[in-house]
């Protein structure tokens, strides 16, 4: 089976599931309307979800769960950090823009890495240089400026898990 067809089928069943969950009406006309809507979605935007040829693997599900748990924990830490900085009367900040090197190549993996960096303590992705694989990161409390150390401190938290999930 081609990848595109597989992606369309997955999108069809996902959108049908979302329709059933957000309407919660189990009657025949509602289900028919849902099937029509899911078909339209699958025809027009179906080929964008799955673009890799890799087989489904149980290990990737486990890595996804581990990534989500780690992400929510970092989100909590980030918010307490922001609350501490905002409440402090003297504003203890030391901002700067540093470089982070990454090993990821796919667009989806780079997007998820940038989003994770933005929602973790004290960092915000400003730009991505795709050719040299460098992320420019605004850091609210600069501890070191060397590229090796920043790569390990900022990117190392998520990079291995994202490499397992997306690459």
């Amino acid at each position: 089976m081609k990848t595109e067809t597989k992606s369309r089928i997955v999108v069809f069943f996902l959108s049908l599931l979302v329709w059933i969950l957000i309407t919660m009406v189990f009657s025949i006309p509602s289900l028919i309307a849902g099937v029509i809507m899911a078909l339209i979605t699958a025809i027009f935007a179906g080929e964008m979800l799955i673009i890799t040829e890799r087989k489904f693997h149980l290990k990737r599900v486990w890595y996804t769960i581990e990534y989500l748990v780690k992400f929510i924990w970092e989100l909590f830490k980030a918010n307490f950090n922001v609350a501490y900085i905002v409440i402090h009367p003297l504003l203890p900040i030391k901002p700067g823009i540093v470089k982070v090197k990454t090993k990821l190549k796919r667009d989806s993996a780079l997007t998820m890495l940038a989003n994770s960096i933005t929602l973790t303590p004290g960092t915000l992705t400003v730009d991505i240089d795709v050719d040299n694989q460098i992320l420019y990161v605004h850091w609210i409390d600069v501890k070191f400026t060397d590229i090796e150390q920043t790569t390990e401190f900022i990117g190392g938290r998520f990079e291995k898990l994202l490499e397992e999930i997306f690459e």
Partner: protein
Amino acid sequence: MPDLAINQIIGYVIICIGVIFDLFGVLGLVRLPDVYNRLQAATKSVTFGSAGILFGVFVYSGFTSMGFKAILCAIFILLTSPVSAHAIAKAAHSAGIKLTDKTVIDLYQEDKELQK
């Protein structure tokens, strides 16, 4: 206060935590010195706060259509708000808006000047 079920009490607690973090994020938007710092504080805290409120609505109303809509909306916020944050940050940097005086280092500007 009327009688509440246990899941409704937990939902209200989560909603209150979300409202408190919204307040912190907005305070950061007012107090911090330049665009990038404001963007950091506001994006993190307000996204977490609003997603917390929506998750509290899910816990409050259980597995109904309102709860699933709230979960969908929370996932949507968590995916899109960082994207708009770094679109704005990149645009502000290329429009030449200065960083604050306390800034230690700006490697992005140096690389831009090297490429010219």
